[in-house]
């Protein structure tokens, strides 16, 4: 089993079957697991199997799925709900969308299995309205499954009924947080509430509700079909199975990959990803999206799993993985994620609502060369407090990009502050245009094109750029035929 680095469990049918034709799914064993559960297993058996598989939630938190189902099954109520979290708000992530677009029946089947296990007859898929293709294919899949009697009432001739409906999200990142998601489905403001009570006790419409991520669900039918002991042989001691990543950034082969837990970052980036584009140097890899951190060279041999990534100062997150090279400024990277968090904060709690804004403002000052060394201590303190005091996972993790870059790229912060330099050459405000006297032939082309008259010099003599006047438009550099103008 070692020939390839990837193994496709979740993506088993993606890119193979026609997702709009249920028969292609059935030909590849869809709904066999549901049939097996209903006809051969008790709900407790199903929960036991999922527990033994070691499956942990792929939505970011890594909570043991079997345990979650067990809790929901033990909370008695006249109605319970199974919710599939397809909000997928991480910038750049599209794993869940791909699964729903490529293999919708895997998720429908898993939700029904979950319903059977916890005693729920209603399933809801909370999907962002910006996913029209996934929505279309889900609707077709639900209709076809109903037509074949694989969803609906008396499934497999049993007393078990299960129906699935779609709910649309407006695309707020925080609506992916489970309590927020539930409020949003109830027509309330999409903002989190304190847990406990957990959804498993008091969820949608106050009823016990089991929320799982798309990818988590997509693992379930295969676990039932092939057995927990097949699944739990894949992966590391505490993280079983595979993880799908959306590999992006400066690697050659960007795309959707699925690797067993325990694969190293090096294997992902340099083998599957084909290394860094244009032969540049690897600098960092960001995992976990806005909640995660930037890992460096020294983490490359870390086997990827839930706990190792946290120990390294990042997170598994939902599976975004962005590779950076020497041209990426790490202060700007932190600023980019903070910008996202500031936009996406729901505003309910003060550390996240205001604190993240303050973090962003400080980072912005640093990238503009207005920072002072004390700011670094302030960044760290504000980050720690925001993590320590925020209400939901968004604020509790939003400073991670700042902290991890402070830890791993402290010198780069210092360079911005003390030397007013951006080592990666990305911070426009810190860049200076220079003319290399030896290369300059004094053709005056640059001086003529400069819109603000920052360039002076005699004809046939080396020219000079007055950086006080220069607005960094780059026009001169474009015009110079002798490569005499550089940015430093």
């Amino acid at each position, binding site marked *: 089993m070692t020939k390839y680095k990837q193994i496709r469990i979740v993506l088993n049918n993606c890119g193979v079957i026609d997702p709009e034709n249920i028969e292609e799914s059935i030909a590849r064993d869809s709904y066999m697991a549901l049939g097996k559960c209903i006809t051969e297993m008790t709900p407790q058996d199903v929960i036991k199997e999922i527990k033994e598989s070691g499956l942990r939630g792929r939505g970011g938190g890594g909570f043991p799925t079997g345990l979650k189902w067990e809790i929901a099954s033990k909370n008695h109520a006249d109605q319970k709900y199974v919710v599939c979290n397809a909000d997928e708000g991480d910038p750049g992530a599209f794993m869940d969308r791909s699964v729903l677009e490529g293999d919708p029946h895997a998720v429908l089947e898993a939700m029904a299995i979950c319903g059977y296990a916890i005693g729920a007859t209603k399933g809801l898929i909370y999907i962002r309205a910006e996913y029209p293709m996934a929505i279309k294919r889900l609707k077709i899949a639900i209709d076809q499954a109903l037509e074949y009697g694989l969803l609906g009432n008396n499934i497999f001739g049993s007393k078990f009924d299960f129906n699935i409906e779609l709910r649309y999200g407006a695309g707020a990142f925080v609506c992916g947080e489970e309590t927020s998601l539930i409020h949003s489905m109830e027509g309330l403001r999409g903002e989190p509430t304190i847990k406990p009570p957990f959804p498993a006790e008091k969820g949608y419409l106050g009823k016990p509700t089991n929320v799982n991520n798309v990818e988590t669900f997509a693992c379930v039918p295969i676990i039932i079909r092939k057995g927990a002991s097949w699944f739990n042989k894949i992966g590391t001691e505490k993280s079983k199975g595979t993880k799908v990543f959306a590999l992006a950034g400066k690697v050659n082969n960007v795309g959707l990959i699925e690797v067993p837990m325990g694969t190293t970052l090096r294997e992902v980036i340099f083998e599957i990803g084909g290394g860094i584009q244009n032969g540049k140097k690897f600098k960092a890899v960001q995992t976990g999206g806005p909640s995660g951190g930037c890992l460096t060279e020294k983490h490359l041999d870390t086997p990827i799993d839930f706990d190792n990534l946290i120990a390294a100062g990042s997170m598994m997150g939902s599976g975004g993985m962005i590779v950076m090279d020497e041209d990426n400024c790490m202060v700007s990277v932190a600023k980019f994620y903070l910008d996202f968090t500031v936009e996406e*904060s729901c*505003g309910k709690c*003060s550390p996240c609502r205001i604190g993240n804004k303050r973090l962003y403002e400080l980072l912005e000052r640093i990238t503009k060369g207005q920072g002072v060394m004390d700011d670094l201590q302030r960044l760290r303190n504000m980050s720690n407090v925001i993590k320590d005091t925020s209400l939901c996972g968004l604020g*509790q993790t939003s400073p991670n990009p700042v902290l991890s870059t402070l830890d791993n790229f402290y010198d780069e912060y210092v360079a911005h502050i003390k030397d007013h330099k951006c080592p990666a050459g990305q911070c426009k405000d810190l860049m200076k245009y220079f003319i290399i006297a030896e290369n300059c032939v004094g053709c005056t082309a640059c001086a003529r094109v400069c819109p603000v008259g920052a360039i002076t010099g005699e004809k046939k003599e080396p020219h000079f750029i007055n950086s006080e006047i220069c607005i960094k438009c780059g026009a001169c550099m474009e015009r110079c035929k002798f490569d005499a103008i550089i940015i430093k």
Partner: protein
Amino acid sequence: MEKVKLSIDNKLVEVEKGTTIYKAAKQLGIDIPVLCYMNLEGLGIENKPGGCRICVVEVEGRRNLAPSCSTDCTEGMVVHTHTMRVINARRTVMEFILSDHPKDCLTCAKSGNCELQDMAVKLGIREIPGQEYAAMSTYKMDFSPSIIRDLDKCIMCRRCEMMCNEFQTVGALSAFNRGFQSAVGPAFEMDIEDSTCTYCGQCVAVCPTGALTEKDHTRDVINALSDPTKTVIVQTAPAVRAALGEEFGLKPGTLVTGKMVTALRRLGFNYVFDTDFAADLTIMEEGTELLGRLTKFLGGDKEVKLPILTSCCPAWVNFFEHNFPEMKDIPSTARSPQQMFGAIAKTYFADKIKVKREDLVVVSIMPCLAKKYEAQRDEFKVDGNPDVDFSLSTRELAHLIKQANLDLKTLPDEDFDKPLGESTGAAVIFGVTGGVIEAATRTAYELHTGKKLAKVEFEQLRGMEFIRKATIDFNGTPINIGIAHGLGNARKLLDEIKAGKSEFHAIEIMACPGGCIGGGGQPLHHSDSSILKARTKAIYAEDEGKVLRKSHENPYIIKLYEEFLGKPMSEKAHHLLHTHYFDKSGKIEIS
């Protein structure tokens, strides 16, 4: 009840399961600071969004800090409320909050009475790092006849939203915008005047900052008082005397009726009168209306509208005009005491002292913000001149008194002027929930049965429960009475009526918790419900101390009818003392 043991700051404590860390700490005398959290203990009014994060504490074994206001104690929990980590976090969070807050304390209406300001003092905040370049979230100011909103000062505690949506079920306020720009207000950031707001002022009563304040009329009153061409008279609502003292450091529940009269006189009012007089008048009118409807009903008239609903709370009037316009012929047509007073003052009394209507300025001191709105309703104006010119809250009166260099505590007691200053105990209890209906019962009983009441107190109508029911025996006829305070509770009774399931003959409704003693214009209770209870006690004590306790025994009321009105519900009374209601359901409603 299951108990759990835990340790807080190395002290052991045993509490009932489900108790929060904040409450458990209180039992140990540890006062963890809270900002967004609010609890009117015993009333079941609680705001617990867990949003401000000021109340965080360290719980051993927990990854992050826990909000003590909304984290339940568990067995064996070890809590620390003032470690370096906690103190630093609390300060930093407070600095965050203040970094997005105008530093307007010198001119802010809440200054000196502001929970945010107090918190900054308590936490010893001396500077806000990075303030020079910190962006602020800003919003447009909103002015209405009763309430002013300055959301730049909103800290998103959500108390107002909870009061408006959960307690009042008005739904005029909700969080809008996201992230840094979020605040609480009517949907689509519309003006409160265009919303379904009833002006009950309960949002103002709980707002910890200067984001929500009353429209201040003290300047107008000072101007009137210093205008030699004007005769300025004042009326004071019953609930004011039971609360005003708090603004001067007196114990809650201290009655300051006589001192208040002295203060008003020294402020320069030409006549110091009492809204209680008008409350007695209300009973005459409303009681007669009730008896009229009852008699018809008992006589077999199926058309008659029952139950009759009281109409002296203007927020409640606004509420049914917005939400139950189809039932607008059920409430009594009697105007509120404030308006009855104004109408009588500007006719009967103006004639008596030979002052032209335009030259008579009527000021009212009210526990209430809805009264400000009520005073400027068109139907209470004659040729554009309002029956009540300015309605001040209890808080505004306190400011006026302080500006006049008077120390209320040390003032002597004086009596109200006559004739509009005489009242009975029945009028005083208008200030508490159940009081209006008790006063009406005292009079209606005697008028209906022709017998004297052996005992004027109707204990079964008293209490703080939100919805109360009692049956009073009117000489063989059982009369079912309902009482609700809080518009959400009123809504329940109204829904019953709408569904044809109501068993009541008469219902009293007050918008504010506890009735007017808990009004939106009262000194701030800062979520201490014992203050409301103390005020209630004071009101009943005032009633007990009165010689006359039934409205129809008020000699000046008798005289008023003799000299001027004829009899209750006469044509003149109709014209001056009754009103009609409007369908306001056309306004946008968001729930």
